[in-house]
């Protein structure tokens, strides 16, 4: 296969980026999209041209590190991660446009690499159950209905790639945040801090500069792990209920 690639090149965060066009003559339909870029990079290096930087790691669709915006869609035409997209999904002679995730909360680091630290900070705001290692009860002490456990697992399957943000015209992170809030709202282990968690994670999400949800469902349509938009509805309920009961309790500390 022969392809024309229009790739976003940007030297660093503060530089101005631009599209550069490459002709790629050595593409096999069996290659993954990232392997196609590997081959391009090897050719560029041979010509003493700087290779294209892109994030990737596991290349089996689970680490969430790969992140390309391909022909106007996050992770390209299939509902999968870029590493699981193969060139047989494209036709000979096609022109492919490759951009980084587009969201002000995900600044470009270099070429196609973006900074998704905002996602980590949202998780740090409350995406956990406050338990220390050790001293916990036996795992089978609390039965959890299979249906609930399965639903929690559906939400927990999020890989944190950021495709939902990239797909959204408002660059909203609500699918990502709601997946974690849902997982813990569904499980008994998450009940104690349920309200506080919703408040804190939503506050951090807003502080990071992600946009609002206007129910276009673009995030669900592009999520490589099939995270459902119903999680956003649940998050909104959790948040509303937290605000209504004004859970904010200042810690008084102290005691003996």
């Amino acid at each position, binding site marked *: 296969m022969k392809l024309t690639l229009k790739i976003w090149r940007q030297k*660093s965060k503060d530089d101005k980026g631009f599209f550069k066009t490459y002709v790629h003559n050595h593409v*096999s339909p*069996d*290659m*993954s999209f990232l*392997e196609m870029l*590997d*081959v391009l990079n*090897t050719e560029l*290096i*041979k010509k003493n*041209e*700087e*290779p294209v*930087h892109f994030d990737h*790691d*596991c*290349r*089996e669709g*689970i*680490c*969430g*590190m790969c992140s390309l915006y391909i022909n106007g869609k996050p992770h390209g035409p299939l509902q*999968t991660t870029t590493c*699981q997209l*193969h060139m*047989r999904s494209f036709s000979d002679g096609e022109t492919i446009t490759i951009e980084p995730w587009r969201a002000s909360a995900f600044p470009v*680091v*270099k070429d196609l690499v973006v900074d*998704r*630290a905002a996602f*980590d900070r949202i*998780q*740090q*705001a409350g*995406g*956990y*159950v406050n*338990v*220390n*290692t*050790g001293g*916990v*009860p*036996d*795992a*089978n002490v609390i*039965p*959890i*209905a*299979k249906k609930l*456990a*399965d639903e929690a*697992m559906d939400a*927990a*399957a999020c890989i*944190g790639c950021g495709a939902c943000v990239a797909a959204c015209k408002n660059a909203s992170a609500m699918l990502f945040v709601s997946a974690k809030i849902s997982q813990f709202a569904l*499980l008994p*282990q*998450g009940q104690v801090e349920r309200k506080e968690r919703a408040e804190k994670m939503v506050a951090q999400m807003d502080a990071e500069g992600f946009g609002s949800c206007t129910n276009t469902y673009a995030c669900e349509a592009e999520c490589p792990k099939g995270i459902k938009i119903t999680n956003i509805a649940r998050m909104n309920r959790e948040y509303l209920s937290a605000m209504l009961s004004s859970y904010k309790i200042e810690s008084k500390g102290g005691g003996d």
Partner: protein
Amino acid sequence: MKLESKTPEGPLAEKWTKHKFNMKLVNPANKRKYDVIVVGTGLAGASAAASLGELGYNVKAFCFQDSPRRAHSIAAQGGINAAKNYQNDGDSVYRLFYDTIKGGDYRAREANVHRLAEVSVSIIDQCVAQGVPFAREYGGLLANRSFGGSQVSRTFYARGQTGQQLLLGAYSALNRQIANGKVKMYNRSELLDVVIVDGKARGIVVRDLITGKIESHSAHAVLLCTGGYGNVFYLSTNAKGSNVTAAWRAHKKGAFFGNPCFTQIHPTCIPVSGDHQSKLTLMSESLRNDGRVWVPKVGVKGLKASEAVKIKEEDRDYFLERRYPSFGNLVPRDVASRNAKYVCDEGRGVGATGLAVFLDFTDAIKRDGKAVIEAKYGNLFDMYQQITGDNPYEAPMMIYPAVHYTMGGLWVDYNLMTTVPGLYALGEANFSDHGANRLGASALMQGLADGYFVIPYTIGDYLATLPYEKVSTDRPEFKEAENGVKERIDKLLSIKGTKAVDEFHRELGHIMWEYCGMSRSDAGLRKAKVKIQELRTQFWKDVNVLGSGNELNMELEKAGRVADFIELGELMVDDALNRAESCGGHFREESATADGEAQRKDDEFAYAAAWEYKGDNQPEQLHKEELKFENVKLTQRSYK
């Protein structure tokens, strides 16, 4: 230097309990006076960093990815073993211990393995308390499955994403400590050297991968939780970034490397499709429960899956069923892998490359119906179709073995300390627990055992002996290490040769796979050693790394890692040459029974090999830790 395993005295089942009591403690108020560095944020690293932060130590954690959640533990599919005996099917701590020792072909330390089995039960409790959504029965209790030929159902799982869920659990615990200010997290930072002060590990030198800045960090102890080195083969099921650099730098600073030749090759991976291949994808070995493995009796060049049906039943060789009538397609990983290689070496392999065998579900679909097979393996079949474009319901899958896990790693004593005081290795990065072969669903168990339940105890015993004073990163030991790192980077950037890093890496992979892979021989290994040395010379003459050291430069990162892999490759070959026996994943052609099965030599090789670095281009020195088996009787594996 004499190797001391520091295994506690006393009966096997009491060693850990007694040891926990005998170890020194650090007073809660004094814990905040100690700094600990944790490198790597997979299961071992994230769980260690979180647990040490909870205890009150000041932790600095480092990962090279953009977030600690990306560590490759995330990709583990199958499950995690624990001796809970929830199924009332005869499991126990002793049985898990016994299975692990036997599965490791008697090349692991008894006391470590028993401790692993003991703490396995606490891991599941911990993960459930964190909100890990394990699979459950309709009654709401945890579900288990039998895994990897185990006789009991002791494997806990979260669909096919157990590693992901366990890692996200550990990541959440880590996040909690980051939010509490007890862990300071450094993303996109790569360890490039370990700093030794007065004979003790007191810090590390890292490169900020975004700015290229070389920075030193000091601490009272350093934990390497940096995973395995399967990418020395270039193609493996590891993530592209998985590397040996941290372990190798530590090795060069005095940490002995244990059993480097022990690598695990997984039989059911999607075969290589061409030279562009960048990694291999594992298909769960549960597929062998229903799939039948075969090749044509007479080789057919380029046989496609769609043409398999043309091969008549009597012209097919179901080679595992033929050679191992009692275990059939369910023989252990190493046996299944080796036999696939043999039939391909005979020219009977299938597919475009001839390096694949069929895994055929036709009979299972006929027997159980498509719906049943779909319910069991639907997601795997979909994944296969996505990658290969072939539909496994209509034509057999093609599979081939791939490197999956490395049992070898930094040698550690019972406390998980390497031969450098204050330097620890946890999880896949160390050599302990799995001997010469790892059982399915045991990697996750070991990573979390080390991080949650071993290191929080053993590190205190060491720290309690140290003064609180911090060492300054202005000390000459740090400056020297920084300069070494900078010189190496400058060297890599100045070569400006003609070949890309990947080309060298791929070449190294070919050598390792051919001569130090599934089957190893004296002559082949000697050839490999020469080839690796030549490759190393070539690399330092002809690699082309563009760009500078003061920016995000992924080629530079790769170049440093590949340079280390090349050196490690040579040590693996030395270790494989030295171990003239077949055991576990290490098969020496000279050490086989009359019918070609692995032959262990307990009289000569019942030891862990620990290699000491003696300087650039010097042969490494072998130290032996004799393995004493006081509780299990050594037997030869047989699957006939």
